[in-house]
């Protein structure tokens, strides 16, 4: 998986901590289950388009949909850059 583009997501709050990652291919079930290495994964396989969300011990949260080529991550203010780099390295592995 390769990160093609990263964009900030504007929401109702300070959007500096929310990013959408666009990837070179779509999320597969295996990709999603692999996220368990980062934290607590919830995978809603029974949804019409399976949804996942990830809660990491460092405070980062991510979510996305199987079959889509993007996901969204919310980073905590503390150690934001370090945590970002960790996620990006994992996605690019």
């Amino acid at each position: 998986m390769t990160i093609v583009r990263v964009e900030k997501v504007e929401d109702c709050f300070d959007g500096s901590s929310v990013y959408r990652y666009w990837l070179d291919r779509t999320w597969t079930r295996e990709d999603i289950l692999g996220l368990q290495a980062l934290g607590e994964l919830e995978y809603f396989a029974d949804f019409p388009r399976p949804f996942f969300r990830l809660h990491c011990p460092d405070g980062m949260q991510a979510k996305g949909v199987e079959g889509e080529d993007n996901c969204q991550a919310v980073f905590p203010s503390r150690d934001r850059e370090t945590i970002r780099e960790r996620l990006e390295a994992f996605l690019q592995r």
Partner: protein
Amino acid sequence: MTATASAPCAGRRGESLANNDRRPVYLNNAATAWPRAPGVVEAVADALRTPPAHPGRSGGRTPDVAAECRRLLAGLLGVSTPERLVLTVHATSALNLAIGGLDLRPGELVVTTVTEHNSVLRPLNHLQRDRGIRVTTVGLGEDGGLDVRAFEQALAEQPALVVVNHASNVTGRVTEVGPLFARARAAGAVTLLDASQSLGHIPVHAPALHADLVAFTGHKGLHGPPGTGGLYVTPGLELGQTFVGGTGVRSDLRLHPAEMPVRLEAGTPNLPALAGLAVALRWGTTDGRRLNANLQRVASRLRNGLRSLTGVTLFDDVPEAPRTGVVSFAVEGWRVDDVGCALEESFGIACRTGLHCAPLIHRAIGSAPHGTVRLSVSGFNSDQDVDAALEAVERIAR
């Protein structure tokens, strides 16, 4: 009737859902109503295809859609002075025209409410910072409606302006503004109604509501195009001119004309959008009226259905309160934006999450700091649309 659409979240969802044989359902009508009224799209397209002709500048060879909009809007607002209808590009510009045009002085008081949208709150906050006006924000009472006692106490300080929104864009709760505005006028205040969420859905009769100013948009309850809106200014109240410039009339004057409505309009109008708005307004006085009964019915179905779901909390859940088609809720164990993402991307239900540009109401209804998941129906939505949303929320909350 049904309203299905490509949900506007992260691209390609509509296509993907279509591939899965599921049609996205549009329940974000409080942001922008969809679909448009019948004939709107064609009217806008026709106007764009036709050589432009500007009102007042074309010698009457083509229909004056601006005048037609003013006439229809005057009828909708129950007034006989279409020249007092200023056409704007949205409710926000109308509210800025109204609040900025009153020439509020340092120390003068404005009374408003916690239910307001940022298009009211921010202009007031800027005037508070830049001109030293005072602002009193009235909260909600125990029944979830406006705290009338606090409102009356605020009137005792003789405000220059009272601004109240007719229907909350967060809860759908309709405020009975008539008696409040009558008291405000008696206290010497100018009354400004934000009808962004009400016009087209419920009667907005300016004289009956004692409203001196009514700001509204064309792309919500009227089912017209975005980029349309307006401000009604009661006869005898002359607002200061925020925008001045070209008008196509009285070009020999050094200053902008003082006559209404051109007094508050400058620049080339968005005539294609106004052509669409005129069609929407005509439809609203005929077939569109029937849709509002359906709106109330499907909104009740949605609200009652959500209330019955385990793990779902409805905000401002007072069943007998008058409302539009807006419902706000949260799901236990879920961030509101996660619910929104799952609804849109997994289930194809277009919704909105967060503060909805109305930051003050959330403390009052218990949805601070993250806000709510908002579903908002229009008269075009069907029982099937609502049931699809209820099934989706039930599965998320399960």
